């Protein structure tokens, strides 16, 4: 079983739709959670970052973390064609000393297409 499982998609939605992207994980040591967006033929760019359970909003994007269920989501409101990209969830554990070294475990990625 992979440490991080991401809904593979692909996902195709009309412009203006609400999009939900999801990942589950099995390692309780994961404490930091990120979402990256990757446009075609480009490197991933950091979209959202959170370390606590609950919701974090940034414009049209909301990152949700449920540590008890080991489940994270990214919601995109009023989706736009410019949101068409691959979305990657990523997680970072703390070691026994409570230190994070920046080594991430990534989901497989979900390809999202938003049609005008």
């Amino acid at each position, binding site marked *: 079983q992979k440490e991080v499982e991401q809904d593979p998609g692909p996902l195709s939605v009309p412009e203006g739709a609400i999009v939900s992207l999801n990942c589950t994980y099995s390692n309780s040591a994961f404490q930091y959670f990120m979402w990256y967006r990757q446009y075609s033929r480009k*490197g991933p760019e950091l979209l959202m970052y959170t370390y606590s359970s609950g919701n974090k909003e940034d414009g049209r994007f909301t990152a949700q973390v449920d540590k008890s269920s080991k489940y994270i989501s990214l919601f995109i409101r009023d989706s736009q064609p410019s949101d068409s990209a691959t979305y990657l969830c990523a997680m970072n554990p703390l070691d026994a000393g409570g230190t994070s*070294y*920046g080594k991430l475990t990534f989901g*497989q990625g979900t390809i999202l297409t938003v049609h005008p």
Partner: protein
Amino acid sequence: DVKVTQSSRYLVKRTGEKVFLECVQDMDHENMFWYRQDPGLGLRLIYFSYDVKMKEKGDIPEGYSVSREKKERFSLILESASTNQTSMYLCASSRRDTQYFGPGTRLTVL
């Protein structure tokens, strides 16, 4: 602004050639990473480095080596390129929790 640069966007090499991929970051980050990304397989970690002259194997180190002589520069070396190393190679750097990626190098080995 965060900046990670990679030496080439596209590279075509022949089987058996020695290939160098260079990555430079200007953020004074301690940690640097090399990944390859293939359709259906996601991002796979090849090697990472926590400090100058330090390196650790990732999940798929076979056929690769790395060099980190200066803090800002992390090189990936394919000693003898093979066709199964055709892929997108991504470099990243981080100080603590989040990684910042370069634009990637699409390597084709013929």
